């Protein structure tokens, strides 16, 4: 099961995890990454059509690189309080290395390619060079 969602509502980690962990008897590893709002309330703007198109493309890319049994990408938008979950990446595979690498790849990619913009109390958040560097290591 491979799924992308862009939504204002929170997601249910346990439910999303369950959906992947029960995909079959050959699932050996399920990894979740949750990014959450640090330190200040954020407003997330996004470019809906491009975001969904690009997130589906990167999921296809991840499937071509690693033997995944399932993966879920959820990105939220709108006003998000401190501690609120922003993004969920879930990967399921027979082996942990594939699940770990795919989850890192998907997160690095989301940071540098998914068209979302955060605004905090002091204005628009600046992009970080470290995110570009993290993304560059995958050679995309």
């Amino acid at each position, binding site marked *: 099961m491979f799924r992308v969602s862009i939504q204002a509502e929170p997601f249910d980690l346990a439910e999303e995890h369950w959906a992947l962990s029960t995909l079959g008897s050959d699932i050996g590893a399920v990894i979740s990454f949750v*990014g959450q709002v640090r330190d200040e309330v954020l407003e997330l703007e*996004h*470019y809906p059509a491009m975001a969904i198109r*690009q997130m589906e493309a990167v999921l296809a890319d991840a499937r071509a690189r690693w033997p995944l049994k399932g993966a879920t990408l959820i990105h939220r938008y709108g006003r998000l309080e401190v501690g609120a979950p922003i993004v969920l990446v879930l990967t399921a595979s027979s082996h942990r290395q594939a699940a770990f690498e795919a989850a890192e790849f998907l997160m690095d990619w*989301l940071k540098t*390619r998914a068209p979302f913009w955060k605004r905090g109390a002091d204005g*628009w958040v600046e*992009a970080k060079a470290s995110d570009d560097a993290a993304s560059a290591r995958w050679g995309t």
Partner: protein
Amino acid sequence: MTGPEPVTLLYFAWVRERIGVQTEQVALAGPTTVGALLDDLAERSAGHAAALADRSRLRAAVNQDFVGWDHAVTSGDEVAIFPPVTGG
């Protein structure tokens, strides 16, 4: 006789704020590039000029794919201009 389909511009984050609109449509005189289109757009208003002045702080997408400044723009394209993304 109708002319060619216009190009749809989309702006996000502080680019949108400085220009003052989320979207606008422009007619092309002929085939152009993203960079040349931005040069034209910058003359539309002080807000456009301020938003589009420093290209090193901007990114572009044509038809929802990231592109460079020399990428072709043709009639009917959806062209988005925005700061480097900060999602995730």
